[in-house]
């Protein structure tokens, strides 16, 4: 009994826990951030950041005017995505428009397109997109296929309806395309959970631990009979609680504001989510063993957050990244949690579907904990 109490005493663990909660409560700004940041990001990403482009200035390059062209322009006018600004007849003119920015989308209809269509030859259409904004370009490409298909389908009616068949009787050739996986707010919102949790968990844990040594309170603390495990658990558990609160706020808001479904297994989500929180706390702990000051802890945390945002597949499609970036991305827990959340929330996945993602997070956790413990021992003396 006394031997066990030497290693772990509930009373001391509880004392650290209570102290952390009091400090958390006193630090109004940080506390407000913990709840405010997820809400703000949710609103920003959900409402302000819309990867679907609107009113892209569009030109049609065509040699001869035909009914197909007329129905295409009409279809573009009704579409939200494109703002039809005119017809050019030469390649030079369309290149010029693209270069100076008057147009960002150009649809080239080759000579004899309509005739080929009627003959059943499957002619080609060329879509040129200003890919300097790859996300907008990607959206345009996706939308254009639909618009063109509808327009041509409508023009091939009456006596020409024999030529209208499915799949579309033409090929849309895409030029300089950059096609992300078609992000919508439905997709971004669950991914945001991974990023926000990682951001707060790593940062707050690291800062909370480093604060003790920077302020000198660690010296008093370790002069008491407290053990490292009591300190660590007592300090980390309150932030697990914060993670729960953040997630609850987030899920409720996502449902209320964006009607993001939760179609999969809650158990799968819950297990994965706890694993993800733990791995982030461990990373925060690791950061705290490296950083000497709270400022360093903050900078190091941001250092880990950037790849989480950029390489996890949250901002940009994972499949589109080069191999080395994918390798880095695979080592980031958010990558796997993101997949897990998307699978569970959007695709209705259950435990079986997410085991692989959970296993990946578990492996990362083991590595992080091993490194952190090794470093922690070195910093004791």
């Amino acid at each position, binding site marked *: 009994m006394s031997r066990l109490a030497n290693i772990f005493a509930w009373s001391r663990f509880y004392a650290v826990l209570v102290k952390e909660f009091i400090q958390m409560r*006193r630090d109004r700004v940080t506390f407000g951030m913990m709840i405010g940041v997820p809400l703000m990001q949710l609103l920003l990403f959900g409402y302000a950041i819309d990867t679907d482009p609107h009113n892209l200035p569009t030109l049609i390059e065509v040699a001869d005017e035909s009914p197909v062209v007329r129905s295409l322009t009409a279809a573009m006018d009704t579409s939200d995505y494109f703002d039809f600004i005119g017809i050019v007849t030469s390649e030079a003119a369309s290149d010029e428009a693209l270069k100076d920015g008057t147009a960002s989308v150009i649809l080239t209809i080759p000579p004899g397109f309509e005739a080929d269509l009627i003959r059943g030859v499957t002619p080609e259409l060329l879509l040129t997109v200003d890919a300097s904004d790859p996300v907008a370009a990607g959206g345009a490409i996706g939308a254009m296929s639909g618009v063109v298909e509808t327009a041509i389908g409508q023009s091939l009616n009456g006596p020409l309806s024999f030529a209208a068949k499915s799949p579309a009787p033409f090929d849309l050739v895409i030029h300089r395309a950059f096609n992300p996986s078609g992000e919508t707010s439905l997709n971004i919102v669950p991914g945001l959970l991974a990023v926000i949790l990682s951001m707060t968990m790593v940062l707050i844990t690291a800062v909370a631990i480093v604060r003790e040594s920077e302020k000198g309170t660690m010296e008093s603390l370790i002069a008491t009979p407290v053990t490292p495990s009591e300190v660590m658990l007592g300090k980390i558990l309150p932030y697990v609680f914060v993670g729960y609160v953040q997630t609850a706020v987030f899920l409720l808001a996502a449902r209320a504001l964006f009607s993001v479904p939760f179609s999969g297994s809650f158990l799968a989500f819950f297990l994965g989510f706890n694993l993800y929180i733990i791995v982030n706390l461990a990373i925060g702990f690791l950061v705290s063993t490296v950083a000497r000051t709270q400022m360093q802890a903050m900078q190091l945390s941001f250092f880990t957050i950037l790849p989480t945002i950029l390489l996890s597949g949250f901002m940009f499609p994972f499949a589109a990244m080069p191999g080395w970036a994918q390798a880095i991305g695979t080592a980031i827990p958010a990558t796997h949690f993101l997949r897990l959340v998307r699978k569970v929330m959007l695709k209705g996945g259950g435990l079986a579907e997410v085991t692989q993602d959970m296993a990946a997070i578990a492996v990362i956790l083991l590595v992080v904990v091993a490194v952190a413990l090794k470093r922690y021992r070195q910093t004791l003396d």
Partner: protein
Amino acid sequence: MAEQVPEKVAGEVAISVTGLTKIFGTRKVVDGFDMQVGKGAIYGFLGPNGSGKTTTIRMMCGLLTPDGGAGQCLGLDIVRDSREIKKRVGYMTQKFSLYEDLTIAENLDFTARMFGMKNRKALVAEAVRDLGLEGRAGQLAGTLSGGWKQRLALAACMIHSPDLLLLDEPTAGVDPKARRDFWDEIRKLAARGVTVLVSTHYMDEAVQCDHIAYIAYGKKLIDGAARDIPGQIGLSTYVVTGPDLSELEARLEAEDGTGQVIRFGAELHVSGTDKAALDALAEVERARGTHEWVAKRAGLEEAFIYLMAGAKDNFMLEPVS
């Protein structure tokens, strides 16, 4: 200066260490340190900044593992039983190390919980009352003045009624009145049988101790009762009064063979370990008839300035890598 407290009769021993050594990197911060502290004594640690006082204190309360040497603290081995030692030792750090964002009562309560005290509420209430802070128990510790912070820190490290109190420069940066109050407190505790080990820079505090050890660059240069230390060094002093002391000071310092010359307001204290040479110098100076030279018993102040000057040499001979 206050009356010197007679040294406690060497009965039971609270701390006894031999050959204590600590190495940080390639640097020997503490080097072969021996010490004996009697139970109920007030033991003073003196020495310049960076001389290893804090490291030595930390090794004795089990915060640091010594790289060499052995010892016991309250009858417990300082390496093996560090956890047991922590339960019976109160350690007050140099820097205020309680939580500034917790209130006075919360800080005391937290410490009491850490030591697993049973009657926490009563202890905290008593400590707050003893501090005279009844109405302010709910005040954040960070908003206290320096002197109050020190007293709160002392109250916190006394909450589990330790047998040994380790105070690391407890009065640094505290005003004289608060310092005096603080020392009254320390003497009360010592009278109750608590052993106190205190490190300090201040001479007026050093003389409050029963026993003093002077440390420089990790080595103990001297230890003994406060009043015996000047004698142990073998220092003789002349007090010089008269006109144009600055001029005389400059002249004496330029002269070879004169020991140390220190200005104390309207007096010069000329000290040296070679009594004969010093007497001869006084004889010559008296003959000039400009200043009055009176022999006096060397005090602690002269002794420590002498030791510090020696330590500086020590530093030059053995550069710290």
